[in-house]
């Protein structure tokens, strides 16, 4: 139930985002979710792709500082309060969130959030117990 997210260290240099995206494109990799955490001089680009292993290999071969992290993709009702409901469940069960960001598509009435948890295994257990859907890695291409 854990999904592989790739984090890439990028300097605030012109064209770096383009370099990453065109590299992935050239290797037939599709980006499904993307977020950037930035500071004054550099940023960390986080992506969920259609083929994490292939993406990481391509990035490392081309000199990028890239590494993988486990994330969980949670289904969230696409209505006011939808996200708050999920967050309440997590808070009530003392699950800590490091960061989160939205997924690129929406499926029916639901949207998807990528969560990075301190303790992904406990988070998955809690979400399942509370009947909150999590996306399986194999099913990424379906959403």
């Amino acid at each position, binding site marked *: 139930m854990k999904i592989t997210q790739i*984090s890439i*260290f990028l*300097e605030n240099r012109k064209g770096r985002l383009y370099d990453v995206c065109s590299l992935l494109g050239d290797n037939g990799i599709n980006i499904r979710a993307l977020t950037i955490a930035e*500071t004054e001089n*550099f940023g*960390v680009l986080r992506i969920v792709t259609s083929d994490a292993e292939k993406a990481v290999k391509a990035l490392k071969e081309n*000199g990028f500082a890239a590494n993988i*992290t486990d994330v969980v993709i949670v289904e969230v009702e696409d209505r006011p309060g939808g996200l708050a409901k999920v967050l309440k469940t997590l808070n009530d069960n003392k699950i800590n969130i490091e960061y989160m960001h939205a997924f690129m598509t929406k499926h029916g009435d639901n949207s998807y959030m990528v969560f990075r948890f301190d303790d992904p295994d406990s988070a998955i257990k809690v979400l399942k117990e509370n009947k909150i859907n999590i996306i399986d890695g194999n099913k990424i291409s379906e959403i």
Partner: protein
Amino acid sequence: MSNKVNKVKVNYFNEKKETLSRKELEKLQLTRLRESVDRALKIDFYKKRLNDIGVKSGNDIEKLSDINKIPFTTKDDLRSSYPKGLIAVNHDKIIRLHTSSGTTGTPTVIYHTKKDVDNWSTLVARCMVAAGATKKDVFQNMTGYGLFTGGLGMHYGAEKVGMTVIPTGSGNTRRQLTLMQAFKTTIVHATPSYMLHVFEKMSEFGFSLNDFSLKRAFLGAEPYTENTRKKLEELFKIDVYNSYGLSEMSGPGVSFECVYKDGMHTWEDAFIMQIIDPATGKEMPDGEEGEIVFTTLMREATPILRYRTRDRAFVYKGECQCKRTHRRLSRIVGRTDDMLIVNGVNIFPSQVESVIMKYPEVGTNYLIHLNKKGSLDNLTVKVEIYSKLFKGELSQLDNLKKKLTDEIHSSIIVKPIVELHEPGSLPVSEGKAVRVIDERKEL
């Protein structure tokens, strides 16, 4: 290179000693060299080396030129002896020690007896009086105090002259200016870059030149050109004098310009000054550039023989208009090693390297970039993030940056700016790695 000076008053702290005939001076040097050798023989390090060349007592030194038989002492020799150091007296006689940072984190230590501190202060007093200071002056010491010998060294010398000393230490420019105005400071001690910085900040802090009573500045701890001296003299409307010293020779007080500003007089009754060819070790004649080598003649606790300073300069030929017979050293023209000076602080690239190598998260490629921020030096250390250990968290990167900054800062005293870069973005060279890019124009 002589500056025309119209009416200058020449004062001496001790006229007799400062104008000894060369013959008398050299006779004194020989006597003191023998005493220094006798002291050095009490130190294992020197005992072995002196015995190896057949010197078992000071009397085995027959003439001054015999000094060339004595092997050189290097910074590494001083480092290897740390912390015991080279000590020729009983520890109860030590009243002060100063350490200076070493390249791999191993410092060097110089010990001082009461007499050593007093002699050191006297030499500094001589320097200050030679450059026009009198007991009527108010002296503001704007360099760091503590282990840095420039602070206490100049402080004690100024007190010996009888000046009113304001021990501000370095930094806090607004307060420096406030005190300079309030107490009508007439003489300051600083690094040339800090002096320029003070001028830049003057109007920003609401001061104008008319608020001050400055007459002279004693500047040192980093090399600067004749042009910079003239610039500072024009900006502040004062006289600027060049000062040279090193902690191994106690600190400031080794060489200093007199009112004629034509070379720095080295006190030859306290040091034997030689210029050598750094490649061969052979002594060079006056007028020719080479590496400065000093031998202490009066130091009791830590005598040092034939110390290679790694500073390059030459000795002036002929006599100075001030009539002092102690020969003059030129401005320091460079180094024989890769030492850098940043805001008056000596730094070796290898100090930065040792810190970086301890962090597996950054690669082994690094670059030290030096430039100017206004008048002050700015040091940036660029490192590359190592892919394997990159965890993808901003906090990891922030932490890493902070740890590197703190550890480098603690090692080199100067606070660096640490920049994290992508792997492969720093230049890679075919041969010897270029570790330093110094964009600072010569001061």
